[in-house]
Protein backbone atom coordinates (compact mmCIF):
# COMPACT_ATOMS: atom_id res chain seq x y z
CA UNK A 1 0.00 0.00 0.00
CA UNK A 2 1.40 3.38 -1.08
CA UNK A 3 0.55 6.12 1.39
CA UNK A 4 0.70 9.62 0.00
CA UNK A 5 -0.67 13.09 0.75
CA UNK A 6 -2.19 13.38 -2.72
CA UNK A 7 -2.60 11.15 -5.73
CA UNK A 8 -2.71 12.79 -9.15
CA UNK A 9 -4.48 10.97 -11.97
CA UNK A 10 -3.02 12.16 -15.26
CA UNK A 11 0.52 13.20 -16.17
CA UNK A 12 -0.38 15.92 -18.67
CA UNK A 13 0.68 19.55 -18.19
CA UNK A 14 -1.97 20.20 -15.53
CA UNK A 15 -1.09 17.08 -13.54
CA UNK A 16 2.62 17.92 -13.70
CA UNK A 17 2.22 21.50 -12.51
CA UNK A 18 -0.19 20.38 -9.78
CA UNK A 19 2.53 17.99 -8.57
CA UNK A 20 4.92 20.94 -8.52
CA UNK A 21 2.52 23.01 -6.44
CA UNK A 22 1.96 20.16 -3.96
CA UNK A 23 5.69 19.63 -3.47
CA UNK A 24 6.28 23.36 -3.13
CA UNK A 25 3.90 23.60 -0.17
CA UNK A 26 5.49 20.56 1.44
CA UNK A 27 3.09 17.76 0.51
CA UNK A 28 4.16 14.57 -1.17
CA UNK A 29 2.37 13.08 -4.14
CA UNK A 30 2.40 10.29 -6.71
CA UNK A 31 1.16 10.37 -10.28
CA UNK A 32 -0.66 7.66 -12.29
CA UNK A 33 -1.10 7.74 -16.07
CA UNK A 34 -2.44 5.20 -18.53
CA UNK A 35 0.02 6.23 -21.26
CA UNK A 36 3.54 4.82 -21.32
CA UNK A 37 5.03 8.31 -21.17
CA UNK A 38 4.65 11.63 -19.38
CA UNK A 39 2.89 14.53 -21.13
CA UNK A 40 -0.73 13.58 -21.79
CA UNK A 41 -2.39 15.11 -24.85
CA UNK A 42 0.64 17.37 -25.41
CA UNK A 43 2.85 14.39 -26.07
CA UNK A 44 0.29 11.99 -27.58
CA UNK A 45 -1.72 14.31 -29.81
CA UNK A 46 0.46 17.27 -30.72
CA UNK A 47 4.14 16.87 -29.71
CA UNK A 48 5.31 18.93 -32.72
CA UNK A 49 2.53 21.49 -32.88
CA UNK A 50 3.37 24.97 -31.60
CA UNK A 51 1.36 26.39 -28.69
CA UNK A 52 1.15 30.20 -28.52
CA UNK A 53 -0.78 30.90 -25.34
CA UNK A 54 1.36 29.77 -22.44
CA UNK A 55 2.05 32.90 -20.34
CA UNK A 56 5.60 34.22 -20.86
CA UNK A 57 6.34 31.52 -23.46
CA UNK A 58 5.67 33.07 -26.89
CA UNK A 59 5.90 29.73 -28.67
CA UNK A 60 6.64 26.15 -27.70
CA UNK A 61 5.65 22.70 -28.92
CA UNK A 62 3.73 20.14 -26.89
CA UNK A 63 6.94 18.21 -26.37
CA UNK A 64 8.92 21.28 -25.29
CA UNK A 65 6.22 22.25 -22.82
CA UNK A 66 6.25 18.74 -21.37
CA UNK A 67 10.05 18.70 -21.08
CA UNK A 68 10.05 22.10 -19.35
CA UNK A 69 7.44 20.94 -16.87
CA UNK A 70 9.47 17.79 -16.16
CA UNK A 71 12.56 19.97 -15.63
CA UNK A 72 10.60 22.12 -13.21
CA UNK A 73 9.90 18.96 -11.16
CA UNK A 74 13.58 17.97 -11.02
CA UNK A 75 14.20 19.27 -7.46
CA UNK A 76 11.47 16.96 -6.22
CA UNK A 77 11.18 13.25 -5.76
CA UNK A 78 7.90 12.19 -7.37
CA UNK A 79 6.92 8.65 -8.20
CA UNK A 80 5.21 8.16 -11.56
CA UNK A 81 3.15 5.05 -12.25
CA UNK A 82 2.94 4.91 -16.05
CA UNK A 83 0.98 2.35 -18.08
CA UNK A 84 -1.49 2.15 -15.22
CA UNK A 85 -5.10 3.17 -15.18
CA UNK A 86 -6.97 3.94 -12.00
CA UNK A 87 -9.94 1.59 -11.89
CA UNK A 88 -11.37 1.81 -8.38
CA UNK A 89 -11.81 4.45 -5.78
CA UNK A 90 -13.28 3.72 -2.34
CA UNK A 91 -13.65 5.79 0.80
CA UNK A 92 -12.20 4.25 3.97
CA UNK A 93 -12.54 6.50 7.03
CA UNK A 94 -10.70 9.72 6.18
CA UNK A 95 -8.86 8.25 3.23
CA UNK A 96 -9.46 7.19 -0.32
CA UNK A 97 -8.28 3.73 -1.31
CA UNK A 98 -7.33 3.81 -4.96
CA UNK A 99 -6.60 0.75 -7.09
CA UNK A 100 -5.04 0.62 -10.55
CA UNK A 101 -5.50 -2.03 -13.23
CA UNK A 102 -2.01 -3.32 -12.40
CA UNK A 103 -2.98 -3.88 -8.78
CA UNK A 104 -1.13 -0.91 -7.26
CA UNK A 105 -3.01 0.39 -4.21
CA UNK A 106 -2.80 3.89 -2.77
CA UNK A 107 -4.09 5.30 0.49
CA UNK A 108 -4.53 9.05 0.38
CA UNK A 109 -6.82 11.77 1.74
CA UNK A 110 -6.65 13.62 -1.60
CA UNK A 111 -7.21 12.50 -5.17
CA UNK A 112 -6.71 15.06 -7.92
CA UNK A 113 -8.15 14.07 -11.28
CA UNK A 114 -6.18 15.79 -14.02
CA UNK A 115 -7.39 13.38 -16.65
CA UNK A 116 -7.88 15.62 -19.69
CA UNK A 117 -10.64 14.04 -21.74
CA UNK A 118 -10.07 10.67 -20.10
CA UNK A 119 -7.54 7.95 -20.62
CA UNK A 120 -6.07 7.04 -23.97
CA UNK A 121 -7.39 3.71 -25.22
CA UNK A 122 -6.89 1.99 -28.57
CA UNK A 123 -9.50 2.71 -31.22
CA UNK A 124 -11.40 -0.41 -32.10
CA UNK A 125 -13.13 -1.96 -35.11
CA UNK A 126 -16.62 -0.57 -35.73
CA UNK A 127 -17.92 -4.12 -36.28
CA UNK A 128 -19.71 -5.14 -33.09
CA UNK A 129 -18.89 -8.89 -33.25
CA UNK A 130 -15.20 -8.04 -32.87
CA UNK A 131 -15.72 -7.55 -29.13
CA UNK A 132 -16.22 -11.24 -28.50
CA UNK A 133 -12.83 -12.10 -30.03
CA UNK A 134 -10.97 -9.23 -28.36
CA UNK A 135 -7.76 -10.30 -26.63
CA UNK A 136 -8.29 -13.86 -27.97
CA UNK A 137 -7.84 -13.49 -31.71
CA UNK A 138 -8.32 -9.76 -32.19
CA UNK A 139 -5.69 -7.48 -30.69
CA UNK A 140 -5.02 -3.75 -30.66
CA UNK A 141 -1.45 -4.07 -29.40
CA UNK A 142 1.14 -6.82 -29.34
CA UNK A 143 2.61 -8.13 -26.12
CA UNK A 144 4.34 -11.28 -27.39
CA UNK A 145 5.00 -11.63 -31.08
CA UNK A 146 5.67 -15.38 -30.69
CA UNK A 147 1.88 -15.89 -30.47
CA UNK A 148 1.67 -15.18 -34.19
CA UNK A 149 4.47 -17.43 -35.46
CA UNK A 150 3.42 -19.57 -38.42
CA UNK A 151 -0.15 -18.23 -38.37
CA UNK A 152 -2.33 -16.25 -40.76
CA UNK A 153 -2.38 -12.66 -39.57
CA UNK A 154 -4.49 -9.81 -40.91
CA UNK A 155 -3.35 -6.32 -39.98
CA UNK A 156 -5.51 -3.21 -40.39
CA UNK A 157 -4.16 0.33 -40.48
CA UNK A 158 -1.92 2.67 -42.42
CA UNK A 159 0.38 4.22 -39.83
CA UNK A 160 3.75 3.21 -38.44
CA UNK A 161 2.42 0.60 -36.00
CA UNK A 162 0.51 -1.26 -38.72
CA UNK A 163 3.41 -1.10 -41.19
CA UNK A 164 6.17 -1.95 -38.70
CA UNK A 165 4.27 -5.00 -37.48
CA UNK A 166 3.41 -6.08 -41.03
CA UNK A 167 7.11 -6.04 -41.90
CA UNK A 168 8.15 -7.74 -38.66
CA UNK A 169 5.49 -10.47 -38.63
CA UNK A 170 5.95 -11.25 -42.34
CA UNK A 171 9.25 -12.91 -41.38
CA UNK A 172 7.52 -15.82 -39.64
CA UNK A 173 3.84 -15.59 -40.55
CA UNK A 174 1.50 -15.11 -43.49
CA UNK A 175 0.53 -11.46 -43.36
CA UNK A 176 -2.39 -9.62 -44.97
CA UNK A 177 -2.32 -5.84 -44.70
CA UNK A 178 -5.64 -4.01 -45.13
CA UNK A 179 -5.95 -0.24 -45.39
CA UNK A 180 -8.78 2.09 -46.40
CA UNK A 181 -6.79 3.94 -49.08
CA UNK A 182 -3.69 3.60 -51.26
CA UNK A 183 -1.60 6.09 -49.31
CA UNK A 184 0.02 5.11 -46.05
CA UNK A 185 0.93 7.66 -43.44
CA UNK A 186 3.85 5.69 -41.96
CA UNK A 187 7.51 6.50 -42.55
CA UNK A 188 8.37 6.42 -46.27
CA UNK A 189 11.16 3.87 -45.79
CA UNK A 190 8.71 1.45 -44.14
CA UNK A 191 6.09 2.11 -46.81
CA UNK A 192 8.71 1.21 -49.46
CA UNK A 193 9.61 -1.94 -47.57
CA UNK A 194 5.95 -3.02 -47.40
CA UNK A 195 5.53 -2.48 -51.16
CA UNK A 196 8.67 -4.53 -51.80
CA UNK A 197 7.44 -7.35 -49.54
CA UNK A 198 4.07 -7.23 -51.33
CA UNK A 199 5.87 -7.56 -54.67
CA UNK A 200 7.87 -10.52 -53.34
CA UNK A 201 4.65 -12.17 -52.20
CA UNK A 202 5.51 -11.95 -48.49
CA UNK A 203 2.63 -9.59 -47.69
CA UNK A 204 -0.83 -9.61 -49.28
CA UNK A 205 -1.81 -6.00 -49.66
CA UNK A 206 -5.50 -4.95 -49.74
CA UNK A 207 -5.94 -1.21 -50.13
CA UNK A 208 -9.26 0.65 -50.30
CA UNK A 209 -10.76 -2.09 -48.13
CA UNK A 210 -12.20 -1.98 -44.63
CA UNK A 211 -13.47 -4.55 -42.15
CA UNK A 212 -17.01 -5.61 -43.01
CA UNK A 213 -17.81 -8.67 -40.91
CA UNK A 214 -16.24 -11.47 -38.96
CA UNK A 215 -16.92 -15.21 -38.92
CA UNK A 216 -16.31 -17.89 -36.35
CA UNK A 217 -17.89 -19.22 -33.19
CA UNK A 218 -15.36 -19.83 -30.46
CA UNK A 219 -12.46 -19.56 -32.84
CA UNK A 220 -12.04 -16.81 -35.40
CA UNK A 221 -12.29 -18.40 -38.86
CA UNK A 222 -12.40 -15.66 -41.46
CA UNK A 223 -13.21 -12.04 -42.03
CA UNK A 224 -14.93 -10.21 -44.85
CA UNK A 225 -13.46 -6.98 -46.09
CA UNK A 226 -15.36 -4.54 -48.26
CA UNK A 227 -13.99 -2.11 -50.84
CA UNK A 228 -15.17 1.42 -51.55
CA UNK A 229 -17.04 -0.08 -54.53
CA UNK A 230 -18.79 -2.52 -52.19
CA UNK A 231 -16.84 -5.51 -53.44
CA UNK A 232 -16.44 -8.11 -50.67
CA UNK A 233 -13.47 -10.43 -50.18
CA UNK A 234 -13.20 -13.21 -47.62
CA UNK A 235 -9.87 -13.74 -45.91
CA UNK A 236 -9.07 -16.81 -43.85
CA UNK A 237 -7.20 -15.65 -40.81
CA UNK A 238 -6.17 -16.83 -37.35
CA UNK A 239 -5.53 -13.43 -35.87
CA UNK A 240 -6.61 -9.85 -36.60
CA UNK A 241 -4.63 -6.83 -35.48
CA UNK A 242 -6.07 -3.30 -35.59
CA UNK A 243 -3.85 -0.22 -35.38
CA UNK A 244 -6.07 2.85 -35.58
CA UNK A 245 -4.32 5.02 -33.00
CA UNK A 246 -5.67 6.05 -29.63
CA UNK A 247 -8.83 7.74 -28.50
CA UNK A 248 -9.68 9.35 -25.18
CA UNK A 249 -12.34 7.61 -23.10
CA UNK A 250 -13.64 8.77 -19.75
CA UNK A 251 -13.44 5.14 -18.61
CA UNK A 252 -13.82 4.15 -14.94
CA UNK A 253 -14.00 7.81 -13.77
CA UNK A 254 -17.68 7.66 -14.75
CA UNK A 255 -18.30 5.12 -11.94
CA UNK A 256 -16.95 7.08 -8.99
CA UNK A 257 -20.13 8.88 -8.02
CA UNK A 258 -19.00 12.26 -9.30
CA UNK A 259 -21.27 14.85 -10.91
CA UNK A 260 -20.48 14.36 -14.57
CA UNK A 261 -21.85 16.51 -17.35
CA UNK A 262 -20.83 15.96 -20.98
CA UNK A 263 -17.64 14.07 -20.10
CA UNK A 264 -16.56 16.77 -17.61
CA UNK A 265 -16.65 16.82 -13.81
CA UNK A 266 -18.39 19.62 -11.93
CA UNK A 267 -16.21 21.41 -9.38
CA UNK A 268 -16.29 24.52 -7.21
CA UNK A 269 -13.91 27.34 -8.05
CA UNK A 270 -12.38 27.71 -4.61
CA UNK A 271 -10.83 24.28 -4.16
CA UNK A 272 -11.73 22.64 -7.48
CA UNK A 273 -13.31 19.98 -5.35
CA UNK A 274 -15.97 17.64 -6.78
CA UNK A 275 -19.15 16.59 -4.97
CA UNK A 276 -16.95 14.08 -3.08
CA UNK A 277 -14.79 15.47 -0.29
CA UNK A 278 -11.11 15.04 -1.05
CA UNK A 279 -11.59 14.43 -4.77
CA UNK A 280 -10.66 17.33 -6.99
CA UNK A 281 -10.74 17.78 -10.76
CA UNK A 282 -8.46 20.16 -12.64
CA UNK A 283 -7.61 20.92 -16.26
CA UNK A 284 -9.73 19.98 -19.27
CA UNK A 285 -11.77 17.43 -17.32
CA UNK A 286 -13.28 19.90 -14.85
CA UNK A 287 -16.21 22.17 -15.44
CA UNK A 288 -17.54 25.31 -13.74
CA UNK A 289 -19.18 28.52 -14.96
CA UNK A 290 -16.71 30.28 -17.25
CA UNK A 291 -14.38 27.29 -17.65
CA UNK A 292 -11.81 27.65 -20.43
CA UNK A 293 -10.05 24.56 -21.73
CA UNK A 294 -6.65 26.24 -21.72
CA UNK A 295 -3.43 24.88 -20.28
CA UNK A 296 -3.02 28.09 -18.29
CA UNK A 297 -6.40 27.53 -16.63
CA UNK A 298 -5.26 24.03 -15.65
CA UNK A 299 -2.21 25.53 -13.92
CA UNK A 300 -4.39 27.87 -11.88
CA UNK A 301 -6.83 25.12 -10.96
CA UNK A 302 -3.99 22.83 -9.89
CA UNK A 303 -2.43 25.51 -7.70
CA UNK A 304 -5.69 26.02 -5.82
CA UNK A 305 -6.52 22.31 -5.53
CA UNK A 306 -3.03 21.73 -4.07
CA UNK A 307 -3.74 24.25 -1.27
CA UNK A 308 -7.04 22.53 -0.58
CA UNK A 309 -5.18 19.21 -0.22
CA UNK A 310 -3.05 20.70 2.56
CA UNK A 311 -6.02 20.90 4.91
CA UNK A 312 -6.85 17.20 4.62
CA UNK A 313 -3.25 16.00 4.55
CA UNK A 314 -2.10 18.13 7.51
CA UNK A 315 -5.26 18.66 9.58
CA UNK A 316 -3.30 19.91 12.57
CA UNK A 317 -1.16 22.44 10.72
CA UNK A 318 -2.03 25.79 9.33
CA UNK A 319 -1.19 26.51 5.70
CA UNK A 320 0.81 29.69 5.29
CA UNK A 321 1.01 31.41 1.91
CA UNK A 322 4.59 32.07 0.80
CA UNK A 323 6.36 33.38 -2.31
CA UNK A 324 9.11 31.40 -4.00
CA UNK A 325 11.15 34.62 -4.25
CA UNK A 326 11.36 35.10 -0.51
CA UNK A 327 10.53 31.94 1.42
CA UNK A 328 13.49 30.11 2.89
CA UNK A 329 11.39 26.98 3.43
CA UNK A 330 10.42 26.86 -0.22
CA UNK A 331 13.98 27.50 -1.33
CA UNK A 332 15.13 24.60 0.83
CA UNK A 333 12.52 22.37 -0.81
CA UNK A 334 13.75 23.49 -4.22
CA UNK A 335 17.35 22.92 -3.17
CA UNK A 336 18.37 26.46 -4.09
CA UNK A 337 20.39 28.82 -1.94
CA UNK A 338 18.58 31.73 -0.34
CA UNK A 339 20.12 35.18 -0.63
Amino acid sequence: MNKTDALIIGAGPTGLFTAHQLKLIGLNCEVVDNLDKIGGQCIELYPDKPIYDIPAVPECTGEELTNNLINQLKPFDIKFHLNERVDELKKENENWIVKTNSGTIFQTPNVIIAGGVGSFEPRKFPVKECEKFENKSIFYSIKDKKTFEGKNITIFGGGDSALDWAVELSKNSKVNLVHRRDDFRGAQSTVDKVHQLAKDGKINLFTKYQMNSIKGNDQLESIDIKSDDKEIKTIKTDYVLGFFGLIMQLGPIANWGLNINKKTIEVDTEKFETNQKGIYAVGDICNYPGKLKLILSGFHEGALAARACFKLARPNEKYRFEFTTSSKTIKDRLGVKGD
Partner: protein
Amino acid sequence: MFSHTCPIFLQHYIQLMAKITYITHDNQNHTIEVQNGLTVMEGAVQNDIPGIDADCGGGMACATCHVYVNDEWFDKISSKEDGEEDMLDMAFEPKKNSRLSCQIIVSDELDGLTVNIPSKQG
Protein backbone atom coordinates in the same frame (compact mmCIF):
# COMPACT_ATOMS: atom_id res chain seq x y z
CA MET B 1 -19.26 60.58 -45.86
CA PHE B 2 -21.61 58.99 -43.38
CA SER B 3 -23.46 57.14 -46.11
CA HIS B 4 -20.15 55.84 -47.34
CA THR B 5 -19.03 54.45 -44.00
CA CYS B 6 -22.42 53.28 -42.84
CA PRO B 7 -22.50 49.84 -44.50
CA ILE B 8 -19.11 48.95 -43.03
CA PHE B 9 -20.25 50.23 -39.68
CA LEU B 10 -23.37 48.10 -39.93
CA GLN B 11 -21.39 44.97 -40.64
CA HIS B 12 -20.39 44.94 -37.01
CA TYR B 13 -24.01 44.45 -36.12
CA ILE B 14 -25.17 42.16 -38.87
CA GLN B 15 -23.22 38.98 -38.41
CA LEU B 16 -22.91 37.00 -41.57
CA MET B 17 -24.34 33.59 -41.04
CA ALA B 18 -24.85 30.42 -43.03
CA LYS B 19 -27.48 27.77 -42.40
CA ILE B 20 -25.89 24.43 -41.63
CA THR B 21 -27.90 21.23 -41.20
CA TYR B 22 -26.52 18.49 -38.99
CA ILE B 23 -28.22 15.12 -39.30
CA THR B 24 -27.52 12.82 -36.39
CA HIS B 25 -27.27 9.05 -36.70
CA ASP B 26 -30.88 8.61 -35.54
CA ASN B 27 -32.04 10.94 -38.35
CA GLN B 28 -32.69 14.02 -36.27
CA ASN B 29 -32.23 17.21 -38.28
CA HIS B 30 -30.68 20.20 -36.58
CA THR B 31 -30.54 23.30 -38.76
CA ILE B 32 -28.72 26.20 -37.18
CA GLU B 33 -27.21 29.47 -38.26
CA VAL B 34 -23.46 29.44 -37.89
CA GLN B 35 -21.40 32.59 -38.09
CA ASN B 36 -19.11 32.86 -41.09
CA GLY B 37 -15.53 32.11 -40.17
CA LEU B 38 -16.38 29.51 -37.55
CA THR B 39 -15.87 25.85 -38.38
CA VAL B 40 -18.68 23.37 -38.85
CA MET B 41 -17.32 21.65 -35.71
CA GLU B 42 -17.55 24.87 -33.66
CA GLY B 43 -21.11 25.41 -34.91
CA ALA B 44 -22.04 21.97 -33.59
CA VAL B 45 -20.26 22.27 -30.25
CA GLN B 46 -21.58 25.77 -29.51
CA ASN B 47 -25.12 24.66 -30.26
CA ASP B 48 -24.96 21.35 -28.37
CA ILE B 49 -25.44 19.19 -31.44
CA PRO B 50 -24.96 15.63 -30.20
CA GLY B 51 -22.42 13.29 -31.77
CA ILE B 52 -19.51 15.64 -32.40
CA ASP B 53 -16.95 15.24 -29.63
CA ALA B 54 -14.06 17.38 -30.90
CA ASP B 55 -11.80 16.09 -28.13
CA CYS B 56 -8.71 18.00 -29.31
CA GLY B 57 -10.62 21.25 -29.78
CA GLY B 58 -10.03 21.66 -33.50
CA GLY B 59 -6.35 20.82 -33.84
CA MET B 60 -6.83 18.09 -36.46
CA ALA B 61 -5.33 15.74 -33.91
CA CYS B 62 -8.10 13.37 -32.82
CA ALA B 63 -10.66 12.55 -35.56
CA THR B 64 -13.62 12.88 -33.18
CA CYS B 65 -15.46 15.61 -35.17
CA HIS B 66 -15.88 13.28 -38.14
CA VAL B 67 -18.83 13.93 -40.48
CA TYR B 68 -20.05 12.71 -43.86
CA VAL B 69 -20.67 15.42 -46.43
CA ASN B 70 -23.40 14.92 -49.06
CA ASP B 71 -22.11 14.51 -52.60
CA GLU B 72 -23.62 17.77 -53.81
CA TRP B 73 -21.60 19.66 -51.22
CA PHE B 74 -18.43 17.61 -51.07
CA ASP B 75 -16.75 19.33 -54.03
CA LYS B 76 -17.80 22.81 -52.92
CA ILE B 77 -15.84 22.56 -49.71
CA SER B 78 -12.16 23.49 -49.72
CA SER B 79 -10.13 20.34 -50.26
CA LYS B 80 -8.38 18.45 -47.50
CA GLU B 81 -5.14 19.79 -46.11
CA ASP B 82 -2.18 17.50 -45.48
CA GLY B 83 -2.88 15.46 -42.43
CA GLU B 84 -6.66 15.40 -42.57
CA GLU B 85 -6.75 12.17 -44.60
CA ASP B 86 -4.21 10.69 -42.16
CA MET B 87 -6.49 11.50 -39.24
CA LEU B 88 -9.50 10.08 -41.11
CA ASP B 89 -7.69 6.71 -41.15
CA MET B 90 -8.44 6.62 -37.44
CA ALA B 91 -12.03 7.80 -37.64
CA PHE B 92 -14.95 5.48 -36.90
CA GLU B 93 -16.24 4.04 -40.21
CA PRO B 94 -14.59 6.46 -42.61
CA LYS B 95 -16.09 6.70 -46.10
CA LYS B 96 -15.19 8.45 -49.35
CA ASN B 97 -17.20 11.51 -48.29
CA SER B 98 -15.69 11.72 -44.80
CA ARG B 99 -14.37 15.02 -43.50
CA LEU B 100 -13.23 16.43 -40.19
CA SER B 101 -15.74 19.16 -39.40
CA CYS B 102 -13.04 21.26 -37.68
CA GLN B 103 -11.50 21.74 -41.12
CA ILE B 104 -14.64 23.08 -42.82
CA ILE B 105 -14.88 26.84 -42.44
CA VAL B 106 -18.36 28.32 -42.74
CA SER B 107 -18.87 30.98 -45.42
CA ASP B 108 -21.66 32.33 -47.63
CA GLU B 109 -20.85 29.65 -50.19
CA LEU B 110 -21.69 26.95 -47.64
CA ASP B 111 -25.15 28.34 -46.81
CA GLY B 112 -27.39 25.25 -46.82
CA LEU B 113 -24.61 22.72 -46.20
CA THR B 114 -25.80 19.40 -44.83
CA VAL B 115 -23.55 17.01 -42.94
CA ASN B 116 -24.31 13.59 -41.47
CA ILE B 117 -22.89 12.65 -38.09
CA PRO B 118 -21.67 9.06 -37.72
CA SER B 119 -23.08 6.74 -35.05
CA LYS B 120 -19.93 7.07 -32.98
CA GLN B 121 -16.74 9.08 -32.91
CA GLY B 122 -14.52 6.23 -31.79
